[in-house]
């Protein structure tokens, strides 16, 4: 079935495709300007490390003990304390999202604190509609609280019994900055946009305009046709991949510890699989509008939700985890995070590369099968 490739024909087809890309200013914009702009937006916009959280504080008890505790809250670099007069006021602020939590020191706080067999409760309310921030609020307040308890014990001359402490060490990323792993992940999203979305339209466009029938009537073989759609977009994609990595390393200062050759290899495999997804949608649906929608749903949204770029795959239920194994983006995210932060960890790179190669063969093979040489 697959006739030998005629390089003359292939070159001519590629030239036509390249002209089409170059002629359209939007594709240049998409390939070179947009990735960099997006990377900047992601780099600064997506951040899971809470900077100072707005925290309300109601001192119903204004004794020195209560103030001492409050000083610890004010002293925390993670909290931006906003004083309020009443609980009702803070409840309102929490509902409107002006504070992410508030602390109430109840009227009888000192009284209970000084009574020997009593425990003085402090009330912490956090906004559960932002779960990640809510748990950070709890952590920061309890940090300030235990600092206060220790100071208090020290001032009263009690030596706190020695306990067990943890010394955390984040390998590859000592200051635990989420940016360092979110930016490599963002590059995956950008590559998905470029790979799948750009190609999702190209075959459908030929069908819509009727030029596909002209092509099929010519001596062009199926392989040549597919290659002519793949190669120019591959070139576009790989250039913008290196552009993104360059911006991430030199401008955004994310460390890159792997080898460029491995990056090129893995990047090529991922691009091929995403181009394959785009071409497949385009070939199956033959309608630009529908192909665009399909690419959005099978490439972009899964890349965002199921790739582990933002959400931890291991926390998902088993069925959903099984589905993530089908997503090429998943392997590229792991490989990119590893290349950027840990360096050349071959077992990870090779297994990701292997899966991506399989995915590429699968999608492009399916596209080849569905590219019918006969007219209906």
């Amino acid at each position: 079935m697959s006739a030998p490739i005629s390089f003359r024909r292939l070159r001519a087809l590629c030239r036509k495709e390249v002209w089409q890309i170059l002629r359209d200013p939007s594709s240049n914009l998409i390939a070179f300007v947009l990735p960099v702009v997006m990377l900047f937006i992601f780099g600064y916009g997506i951040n899971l490390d809470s900077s100072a959280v707005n925290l309300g504080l109601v001192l119903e008890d204004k004794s020195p003990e209560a103030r001492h505790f409050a000083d610890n809250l004010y002293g925390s670099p993670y909290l931006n304390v906003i004083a309020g007069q009443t609980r009702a006021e803070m409840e309102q602020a929490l509902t409107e999202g002006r504070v992410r939590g508030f602390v109430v020191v109840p009227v009888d706080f000192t009284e209970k604190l000084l009574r020997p067999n009593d425990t003085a409760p402090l009330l912490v309310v956090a906004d559960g509609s932002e779960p990640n921030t809510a748990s950070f609020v709890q952590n920061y307040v309890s940090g300030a609280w235990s600092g206060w308890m220790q100071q208090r014990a020290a001032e009263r001359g009690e030596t706190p019994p020695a306990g067990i402490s943890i010394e955390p060490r984040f390998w590859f990323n000592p200051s635990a900055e989420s940016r360092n792993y979110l930016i490599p992940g963002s590059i995956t999203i950008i590559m998905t946009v470029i790979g799948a979305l750009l190609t999702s339209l190209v075959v459908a466009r030929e069908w819509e305009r009727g030029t596909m029938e002209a092509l099929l009537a010519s001596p062009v073989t199926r392989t040549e046709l597919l290659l002519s759609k793949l190669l120019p977009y591959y070139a576009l994609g790989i250039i913008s991949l290196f552009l993104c990595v360059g911006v991430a390393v030199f401008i955004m200062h994310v460390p890159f510890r792997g080898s460029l050759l491995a990056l090129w290899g893995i990047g090529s495999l991922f691009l091929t699989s995403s181009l394959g997804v785009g071409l497949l949608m385009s070939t199956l649906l033959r309608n630009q509008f529908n192909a665009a929608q399909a690419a959005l749903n099978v490439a972009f949204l899964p890349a965002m939700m199921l790739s582990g770029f933002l959400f931890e795959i291991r926390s998902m239920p088993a069925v959903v985890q099984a589905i993530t194994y089908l997503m090429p983006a998943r392997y590229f995210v792991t490989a990119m995070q590893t290349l950027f932060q840990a360096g050349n960890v071959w077992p990870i790179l090779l297994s990701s590369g292997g899966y991506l190669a399989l995915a590429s063969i699968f999608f492009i093979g399916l596209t080849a099968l569905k590219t019918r040489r006969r007219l209906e």
Partner: protein
Amino acid sequence: MISRIFTLVIKELQALLRDRQSRALLIMPVFLQLALFPFAATLEVKNNTLAVFNEDNGRESAELMQRFSRAQAFTKLLTLHSEAEVRHAIDNQQALIVIRFPQDFSRNVVAGRPAKIQAILDGRRSNSGQIALGYVQQIINTYNDERIDSRQENAASTLVVRYWFNPNLDYVWFILPSLVAIIITLTALIVTALSVAREREQGTFDQLLVSPLTPGMIMVGKTIPAMLVAMMQGTIILLGAVFVYRIPFEGSLLLLYGSMIFYILALAGFGLLISSICATQQQAFLGVFSFLVPAILLSGYASPIDNMPVWLQYLDWINPLRHFIVIVKGLFLKDIGLVALLPNLYPLLVIAVGTLGASNWMFRKRLG
């Protein structure tokens, strides 16, 4: 005039729902996303692997290991025997966190001296790592407290923590309201931007412009079908959230659908503006994308808006999704009223007027 617009709306709906393929593409993904994404989108740490490198043979470290293995966050406990194995486990992501007990750990604990354990975390997943570390810390705190309690009277003060609006910090409660907003965004933008671009590519747009329809009427004709389809999809997610996922809807439906209309107008404004600049569907689609991706990622859904630099927070003001997610979440979980809604509702109105006005001007310019 009304009947002209009505005819246009019918024609647009027919173009959208013409064949089975198009209908399936408008409905199927919504159900798929409803079934999949709420489970996927979580920043919680569950089912993870904790590895232990125990150089200590005492009872105390064994006791702590027992407790770690009972924690919900870790379903697998991996035992390591050397430094090299620790490196291997972290490098290859076999474990999110490795706990290392030094040789003198149990001796120090028994003697009442400060005892240290090391936690080694995978920096490639530092957010999950920090959360997992929080769990480990809690287990150790409880253990510390129990040891102190057996010698001392009760603590002088405690923290009582309450999570409002979502008492169990359930991620699904956070995701589904946001998903309502995201689905509407996708559809409303694509339908408005691509339907004009398709007419342009096929040359029928000029025919529309020379018809008795004014550009304003054409815009209304393009917006209403997008609104109907997007609202239907939003309603599917809403029903799924309430009846399948059992998330309480606290607020007013009237306010929800009212603000949804403003929101879709703002989106239609962007969609029409994009299509007024683009000549082909490909350009329109890429234009939609350049707007859509940042809009979703900077909406407060992927990470809190408070964490963004101030200049970006200001820039993000023109992102209608950012305002609408606050509205949907507020209505879903917080039962906010109209007054509390206004700070997020008026930007939608401003954006809608601005973008619709601009695209009307662009279409008129083309005509004139």
